[in-house]
């Protein structure tokens, strides 16, 4: 939800990284990014925290 709000405020080409401890979000965010047509720059998990790096493409 926070990522969707932040993406609305971002400019095309902006990159955002979301940190989440929610496993569901770690699965849903890449699915949503791909569905809408933005870009996943990278995903990693460290000590139970998911770091998801995305780029706004449109």
């Amino acid at each position: 939800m926070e990522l969707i709000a932040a993406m609305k405020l971002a400019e095309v080409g902006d990159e955002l990284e979301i940190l989440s401890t929610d496993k569901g979000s770690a699965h849903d965010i890449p699915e949503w990014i791909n569905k809408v047509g933005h870009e996943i720059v990278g995903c990693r998990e460290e000590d139970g925290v998911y770091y998801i790096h995305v780029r706004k493409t449109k």
Partner: protein
Amino acid sequence: MKKILIVGGGTGGTILANNLARRLTEELAAGTVRITVLSASDKHMYQPGLLYVAFGRMASQDLYQDQASLFEPGIVFHVDPVKTFDMDNNRVETESGAEHDYDYLVICTGSRPNPESVPGLAEHANHVYTVEAAEKTLAALQQFEGGRVAIVTGVPHKCPMVPLELTFMMHDYFQDRGILDKVEFFYTYPIGRLHSLENVGKWAQREFDQLGIHYETLFNVKEVDGEKKQVHSEEGSVVDYDLLITVPPHNGMPVILENALGGGGWIPTNPNTLQMEGRENVFVLGDTTNIPISKAGSTAHYEAEALGENLAALVRLGTMVRTYEGKVFCFIEAGKDRATYASFDYQNPPQPQPPTQMIHWFKLAYNKLYWNSVRGLL
């Protein structure tokens, strides 16, 4: 004299002012502290009541009380909203041209629905975020004779339980009208589950499946085609509707944007101290923060209690004494006569229990008790 200036007279600002006035009674009497509240309105609205207005269960005029009547003695109150924040000089200028300086500033100007940001949404969808909209929704529900009801939710929005509550309450409303067999519900939600709080989403899914309510997730409304009665999503879906209900996207207030205090009108805020980022003597409450937490009266209430304790301690001791741990408590109406609740904080997710009539009665009682709560008595 220490001057505490509160900008905004909603739930957070009013509870904070009263909390401080009680803590600093001696200082107020001695004239060593001044608490000033600046608000845009001389009326205070109980915003959760709008949901009930849409179902004919509360009257619009019952949602209001005079703002001045809610304050403890000693609080200075002006209906004179701020126009300019000059934080480098600890001063604000109001719409009337008055200037107020401060030692501590609290910004709690709230949020506003912005259905206009989605093409076709304001014209073709009904919502419950203003009196006018709630009364229009009541008329639409009364006139509806059957078909597909689509529920679409914008991001971010105020009051996180409203998408679910509207759906459950419409279900029972149409059941009472005897047309439920002619109604199909189609609930959509922006992320990959039925609610932002995972356990609330799981609970709602069980309820929806029992009631035969259809749903689609990862659905962010892009535009509404009122002629074809279709909603298009950012993700490429198209949903037909006969009655369209929305929880519209929200923004912070224009004064926050005009003063470049935060993108979208949300001020970057420390989630534990509630200090505005980069400003030691400026605090932010309620919807106005950018904290990733529910935008709800309950959030503002718990934040105001923590901040009241800290501001009083700053005045007396020169230091803060507690942190806000993200506490929120939300009732969830699960129909016309049953409800549950979600109680959670930053570390502990909610565990919603099966709805009961008793919790619904508590919620109805709270609709009246709010006026004690906002006075700081509850």
